Structures are given as structure tokens and as C-alpha cells.
């Protein structure tokens, strides 16, 4: 019988530009908040799992474990991965296997330190051939949208509706972020602004369709079930977690309108969690663009293929705080999503788990979802690259 990993505390920094702060300061802040909440000491940690994509490039930190050791004065095992979800997966495996009973999972990114080159760096996460052919971090999202429209035969007035639905995704996420003190953009925007930006860009998607470049850190304390019960009355369990992979070369994939990896990861995570997809009320999905949020609803199986934009469009006519799918409520990206909360790559997944943790514990303040007796299950979808890797994590109060 394996033990279940549980999150007992979370911490994060505000996302945005932290011009004056070193990366150490950011992870320190996130870690301190989590440790205070869990009421634990550094020496209680048996291992650390840290995630970042670009610290070796942006801050010339080649061996991040070393700086974390220096920071924490710990000499425990530490491992660095790219996404927060991959760090969390490794941590979960270790806890489940009984190797450790308490570990730190942290994510950090300092993208604005390399403002003029970060878009080139981001292309490292896409395939080199696309880069050689002139691809940008935005182009694949737009191609995916073009392909989606074609594949599902969206025509005439429906194209306008679909485009409006995508604009609503951004407007909705910005609105959510106004209630999130940590969010990068705590201001409302309008559908007109989104559409105008697209027109100015002369492209299918514009400035307001894309997540920004951000600095930030997030962390959580992960423990065994037994340990969690000693530390808190309200642990949040990692019920299921899974990941899947796909071709690096986006154009070479069979279906360019979805992320196969997300679909597989969700299927396996649900199986592990033993939870019905429709019992999930809160979903933090990876909206690097508005298209990605739309596609995520389909990849995670909440909406039928080719139908998510209709759901979004209908739900956003008079937005009540959730997407209404077949009479069920699905609260998506309550923290503002990557779009408005921010997207410091290595820390992004941490903010997503942070949000689901708060929502499940009923601690989300103004943005707490209104649901009978509160939501029981939530999920996090995080991608690496343009759907090259997908991580799904299902969290639950029980």
C-alpha cells in the first residue's frame, strides 16, 4: 500500500517584473511563505525538487542545486527539472515510494533579465527546424487556430463567434486576476481591446491573446499522508498525476488541432485518481494563449472536440464566473490564468497548484468559487514546449 502525497502548504511571489530582485530572493520568499504556513523548519526537509527552464541562460546559474543549498544551508538531495509539474511528479513518486515523508517543491523563473533575447530562448522549447524556418513563440498558436477552424469547418458568422469566444477567454482571465493579489495584471480588459490588438498585429491572435513574460517563484510542501495529518487539518491530496510526451516538431504531429499528450495524461491521471472527470470543478489550464485554453477544455475531455469555443461563447455572454458545460459548472483559471496571473515558466505550474489548493481549502478569498459545500476535486494542466510534454495533476480534499 502506497502512501498518498499531500500538499500541506503553498507559497508564491507576485508574478511580473522583479527588476531589482535576484532569483534567490524570489524562491526564498516563496519558500518562506510555505514554511510559515506549514509551520516547519528547513531541517525538516528531506529533499528539494526545483524547476526552472532558463536560469542557466538568463542568470548564468548552471547548477541551480548549489545556489539552493547555499540559500537553505541544506545538504539534502536536490534535483532540478524544467516545469513545476515535472518537479512535483518526481516529488510525488518519491513520497509514494516511501523514500521521503517531507519535501520542498519549488519553481522559479527570471525571464525579464533577458528581455531582448527571451523570445529566441523560448524557441529552444520548440523544434529547431521550426526555428530555422522562422517560427516565433506565437506562430504555432496561430497555426493551431487556423487548423482548428479548418478541421471543424467553422465558417461565416461562426468564425466571428469563435474569435469573440477567444477574446472572452482573455477578458475573463483578466477579470479573475483583479481578485488575485499575486497576479501580474490586476486590471480588466475589454473584448474590443483584444480584437483591436489582433487587428493591429494583423494576425489571428494579438497581444491580449498571449501570456506575458514574467519573473516569479512558487513553492509547496509535499508530505506523506501520515505526515500531512500531523501538520494540518486540511491537507490536499495529489489523487492522480501523469504525464505524456509528443513530437518536438509540431507540424509533424498527426493532429495539429490538439495536444495528444494532454489527452493521454488526463486519461491516466483520472484512472490513478479514481475520480470522474465531471466531478472536477476547478481546472487550472495552461493558457499560454487563448487558443490553448480552448483546446485544453477539449483535451481534458470537458468539452467535445470542436465544441469548446461554443461553450466559451455561450458561457461568456453573461459570464457567471464559470463555464457551463452540459449543465455543470467548471471554474477555469480562477487566478487569472497564465494570461493575467503571469507565466514565469518554471514557476507557472506552482501558481496553478497554489490556486487549486486554495480553492479546495476554501481559502481563495474574493475569488473563491461558489459551489455547494465547496469543490472537492481540481486539476492542473501544465505543458512543456508547444505540447511536447503534458502534465496533469488531480488534487482532492479526500
Amino acid at each position, binding site marked *: 500500500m502506497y502512501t498518498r502525497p499531500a500538499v500541506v502548504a503553498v507559497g508564491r511571489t507576485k508574478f511580473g517584473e522583479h527588476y531589482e530582485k535576484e532569483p534567490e530572493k524570489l524562491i526564498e520568499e516563496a519558500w518562506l511563505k510555505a514554511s510559515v504556513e506549514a509551520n516547519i523548519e528547513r531541517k525538516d526537509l528531506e529533499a528539494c525538487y526545483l524547476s526552472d527552464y532558463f536560469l542557466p541562460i538568463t542568470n548564468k546559474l548552471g547548477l541551480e542545486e548549489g545556489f539552493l543549498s547555499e540559500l537553505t544551508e541544506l545538504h539534502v538531495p536536490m534535483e532540478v527539472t524544467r516545469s513545476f509539474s515535472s518537479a512535483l511528479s518526481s516529488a510525488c513518486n518519491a513520497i509514494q515510494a516511501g523514500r521521503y515523508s517531507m519535501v520542498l517543491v519549488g519553481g522559479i523563473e527570471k525571464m525579464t533579465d533577458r528581455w531582448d533575447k527571451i*523570445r529566441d530562448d523560448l524557441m529552444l522549447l520548440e523544434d529547431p527546424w521550426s526555428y530555422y524556418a522562422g*517560427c516565433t513563440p506565437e506562430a504555432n498558436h496561430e497555426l493551431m487556430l487556423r487548423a482548428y477552424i479548418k478541421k471543424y469547418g467553422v465558417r461565416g458568422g461562426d468564425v466571428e463567434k469563435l474569435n469573440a469566444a477567444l477574446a472572452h477567454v482573455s477578458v475573463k482571465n483578466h477579470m479573475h486576476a483583479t481578485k488575485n493579489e499575486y497576479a501580474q495584471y490586476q486590471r480588466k480588459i475589454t473584448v474590443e481591446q483584444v480584437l483591436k490588438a489582433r487587428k493591429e498585429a494583423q494576425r489571428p491572435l494579438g497581444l491580449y491573446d498571449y501570456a506575458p513574460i514574467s519573473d516569479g517563484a512558487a513553492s509547496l510542501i509535499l508530505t506523506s499522508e501520515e505526515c500531512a495529518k500531523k501538520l494540518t487539518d486540511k491537507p490536499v491530496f495529489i489523487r492522480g498525476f501523469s504525464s505524456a510526451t509528443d513530437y518536438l516538431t509540431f507540424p509533424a504531429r498527426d493532429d495539429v488541432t490538439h495536444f495528444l499528450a494532454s489527452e493521454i495524461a488526463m486519461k491516466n491521471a483520472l484512472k490513478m485518481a479514481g475520480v470522474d472527470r465531471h466531478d472536477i470543478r476547478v481546472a487550472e489550464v495552461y493558457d499560454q494563449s487563448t487558443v490553448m485554453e480552448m483546446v485544453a477544455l477539449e483535451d481534458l475531455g470537458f468539452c467535445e472536440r470542436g465544441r469548446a469555443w461554443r461553450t466559451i461563447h455561450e458561457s461568456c455572454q453573461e459570464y457567471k464566473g464559470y463555464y457551463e458545460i452540459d449543465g455543470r459548472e467548471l471554474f477555469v483559471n480562477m487566478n487569472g490564468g497564465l494570461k493575467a496571473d503571469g507565466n514565469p515558466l518554471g514557476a507557472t505550474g506552482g501558481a496553478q497548484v497554489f490556486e487549486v489548493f486554495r480553492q479546495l481549502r476554501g481559502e481563495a478569498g474574493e475569488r473563491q468559487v461558489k459551489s455547494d459545500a465547496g469543490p472537492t476535486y481540481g486539476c492542473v494542466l501544465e505543458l512543456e514546449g508547444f505540447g511536447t510534454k503534458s502534465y496533469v495533476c488531480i488534487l482532492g480534499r479526500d
Partner: protein
Amino acid sequence: MKVSSEPIERRVSYLGDRLMGRRCGLCGKEYFEIKDYCGACGRKSYGKMADIDLFYDKGVLEYCTLVNEPTNKFTKLGSFIYGIVSFHNGKIRVPGRLTDQMAQLEKEVDFSSLEDREVVPRFRRRYSVETCDVVPTISLAFTFADEYYPYQRYETVKPSKEYDNPGIVSYGAYTSKFRIKEEHIERSVPFIDEDSITAAVEAGKMALMHAAVSNSLVGKVYVGSESNPYAVKPIASKVAQVLKLGEEDEDMQGVDAVDTEFACKAATSMFKDAASLVSYPKSNIQYAMVIGADNSQAAPRDCAGGELDLFVGYGGCAYIFGKKDVIAEIEGWYSCTSDTPDFWRRDGEPYPMHGGRFTGEPAYFKHVRKAAKKLMERLNLQVGDINYFVAHQPNVQFPVRIAKDLGFKEEQYLPSLQVAKFGNTYSGSSPVGLAAVLDIAKPEERILMVSYGSGAGSDAYSFLTTHQILEKRKRQKLTVKYQAENPFLEYVDYTTYRRLKSGM
């Protein structure tokens, strides 16, 4: 200073220039990479993967979008269309950018009007690098198959006739889609991702398609140019690899490749060498290719040497010589040389200089006249025995004056006069003139070509066309006339011309 990683460059260009792939012999699945086994069939497909390349293929632009905020190495391209191109009914999908697009992007782009259209790969520069770096190239640039460069199949045909004398087997003239028009002269302008290397490869590709000869039978390639982006490193090695000339052995080509330099006669000088080589029985070489290609250099107008800026063009011309299925036999040649410093470019200098009074009478006219007269004398030819006269064309006046001096009439020299349409394409100048004549010549007509290279010297050749010139014409889609009068030409202003010419 950053310098390219040589092994990465080697691997990327090996695959990307030719668009190499593999097809599984068991299930038929195709890959855009050199895979040794099929992902679907696994181990049992080992050794059953066949090479494919998409270089001569056409694809379909499936989806596209506009890139108007490119990543750092692409900023000189400005805006461009980027998308997914599929080949073989979607069996292979590759990323690609459309090239040669400028005016189309000034207004709002309707992506659906571009999608589902056929596209052809173009061999171009990949992106900008430092001037000390390896020049990166790739064929993931595309143009529409129904625009300036029409799609043409490359197929090989068994030769039907062997000749006693060597001659021209095929040719291909390549110019760009852009022009600058000033007063009475139009000149071709390279797109920003073009240079003498890309023109040489594209011209060679066209010559192979015209010849319908297997690339593996070409045993030697010469590239004459005076605008090689490298001071040291041949264009010919790139041509040999991209066109896969000679027998391929492992990742090398069994071909001799060399660059030549003698101002504007760097290519024509090698015609006789190529012809001799294929005639020497022990050379074991059936075909030899000669290419003249230049992004003709000139200083800006207000600088020293800027007078050339009114005449320089861009383009390349390739000729394949052999003894089988010849379209024009070589009757004879004569070359003359003198050390005349009429035009030069010192090492490290970006633009060539003119010696003022030297360029006319003591240089161009003296050498061209000598070569033409000597060859006619040797072959016992009168002006009336010659159907077409082709001269080097640095401007409009010089070739006309020398033609008249030699006694030629308009109908003899006008068909070859292309400088007013493409500008002076330096090493490609008289070869383009010859191509224009071969495009229209009837069998058993005599062509006298005289090149000129500053420094100085001239090569005169007498060609006699054969009956096979007609049957091969059906494979010559991109004729000189077609390129001169193309409806897809795009005209640019002086500032744009200078920017495009300076390249990525």
C-alpha cells in the same frame, strides 16, 4: 564574437538544404530526417528505409500566419508568412516560410487565400549571422508553384544520341523576382535571403531539370563568381552537395568542385575545360557543370566606384557540358589575356573599383574584338555565317558598339542583349545572353559568344545548334523571356534595392 558550431551547421545544412528524409519500406511512413528505422515498424524495418528528398518536389501550404515580430536572427526579413507545408498528401509535414513576399504583406493578409496552394522549396539563406560566421542556408523557404518560379519536375531520360564533339547539353538561367527600374534599364534585385550561393544552386538545379540527366553523372562542377560571401570557402562545394552531383558515398559526393575567379569571365573561361574534360576518355566524366553567378557588387552611388550601381544585377546561369544529347556543339574557341587593371576589388574591400578610362577601349573593346576576330579567322567564318552574336554586357552601349564594329546586324546581336532586363550579372552576364539565344535558336544555327573579364581577358566560343535543341525546349519552363516579362515581377525603389542587395 560568436562563431557557428561547425558540426551543427554541417548536419543542419546536409538535411535542410536538400530536405532529406526516409521512407519505410514496410509501411510507407515517411520522415523528415535520416531515420534508420521506422517508428511504427520498429526493428524489422532496419535496413529497409529508403532515402527521399523533397528538393525537387512540390508541397501544399496547409496553414499559415504572419510573422511580423520575428526572433532576433530573422529581423532583417521583416514580415513574412510562416506555416506548415505538407508533401506527399500529408505524409510529411514541415515548417516553412514563404519567401519573395513584400508587396503582398503591405496590406492585410487573408490567410485562407494562401492556404491550400502549391508551393515549391527554394534554396535560400536561413537567417542572419555575424560576418565572421558560416553562411547558414536552408530549403525550408517556399514560393508559390504558380508564381514567378513555376513548378517543374525533375526526371531523367535515357540519352538517344552521342556526338563526336562535346557541347552544351542543357542550361538554366536563374534570376530573382524583384527588379529596379531606372530610365531605360531594368535590373534584377535579389531578395534579402538570396546571394551568389543560392543563385548558383538554383541555376544548377534548373540545368539538371533541362538536361534530364542524373545528377550522379555530373563529375565536375565549376562556379565562377566575384561576389562569393566567403573569401575562402567554395560555392561549388555547396552546389555539389545540394544538387548531389557525382556518386554519393556515405555523406560525400564523388565529384570535383571548384570555384574560379576572373571578374566577369570566371564561368565562361571554364566552358572549354568542361568540354575538354568530358572528351577525355580516361576522365570517366560524362557531364561537367559550369555556373556563373553573381550578386553583382557596386558601391552606393555617392561613393567611389558608385558608377557601377546603375548597372549591377543579380542572377546565375548554369551549363552542363557533355557529348550525349547535345543541343549546341562547340566548334572552337579562342581566349586572350593581358594584365590590364581596369576593374578590381582588393581583399577585404566590400565593393570593386573602376579604373576610369581603362574600362572601354583598352579593356573591353580590345579584348572582345581580338577574341572574336581570332576565332572567326581560325574557323574561317564570315559575319554572315553567324546567326547570333553574344557579347559580355556591362551596359547597353558596349555590346551594341562592339557588335556593330564587328559588322553584325541587329537581328544577330539583339536577341542576346539582356542587360536592359536584368542588369549586369557579372559572371552570369554573357551566359544569360547565350541562354536567351538558346531559348529561341533553331537547329543548325551558329552562335558566336565572347565574354569579357576585367583584369583582363576574353573567351570566344562558336556553337552550332543541333536538332535536339527543339525536343529539350519543352523542359525549359523558366526561359529568359519568361523571367524578363513575368507578370509576378515586383519593382522596388532605390533604398529597398540597396537593402535587399546587402542581404541578411
